């Protein structure tokens, strides 16, 4: 089971600023272990943000996104007290969904 992510959503002047910190190794597939074998790539592939069950922002990550990825985006049309739902899926099919109340 994947570790929880930290999500913060702050509304200001009609624009909601969402900051997400995911917990993921983001293995590149370039590194080798002690015996010289390549460590398989393991990274978050897709991330979706929803507000009121409507998708507002989608991302696709490659292996070059840093370990424990940070993501910041903004959208209009969210009000204080509403819920932002973030879901990611990695290339092994592991997934994690977390929510934040817009402050």
């Amino acid at each position, binding site marked *: 089971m994947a570790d929880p992510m930290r999500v913060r959503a702050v509304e200001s002047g009609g624009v909601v600023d969402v900051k997400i910190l995911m917990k993921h190794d983001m293995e590149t597939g370039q590194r080798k272990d002690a015996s010289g074998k390549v460590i398989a790539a393991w990274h978050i592939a897709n991330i979706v943000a929803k507000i009121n069950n409507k998708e507002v922002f989608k991302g696709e990550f490659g*292996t070059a996104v840093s370990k424990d990825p940070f993501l910041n985006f903004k959208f209009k*049309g969210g009000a204080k007290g509403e819920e932002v739902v973030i879901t990611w899926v990695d290339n092994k099919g592991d997934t994690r969904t977390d929510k934040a109340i817009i402050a």
Partner: protein
Amino acid sequence: MDYKRRNMIKIGTVISLMASTGLISFAQANEWNKAAFDGKSLDDVLKALGSASAEKSASITLNAPDIAENGAVVPVGISTTLPASQLAIIVEKNPNVLAAQFTILEGAQAFVTTRVKMSQSSNVYALVKVDGKWFVTSKEIKVTLGGCGG
């Protein structure tokens, strides 16, 4: 003929086996643009994203440091005044150049910040898609310590 068909059946079985054992995840089967992420150059990625070239634009801002001390964590941000539908970050000298791409849906602003790995000093491109056309701006980031240790 029959031989080919046999092979096809075999390949089909292998693929479905891989899917069921999780070697091909549903993310890959779904929306993850593998061709674009496998691209080795800016042109490869543009081709996979459905465009032959990208036009330079001054309306895109690429927020990134001039010098990154640690190539494993380089903050990169894109913002633009253009009505963008898609954003992408490309690191020219990485083994696979496309780092991430984002879809701006209704309501979201053409703004994103994330952190990427850089194997060495390189040009970083911010790509922005407007009405099916790609626009680009670039910046050179110097890396003192690479982010893809072997």
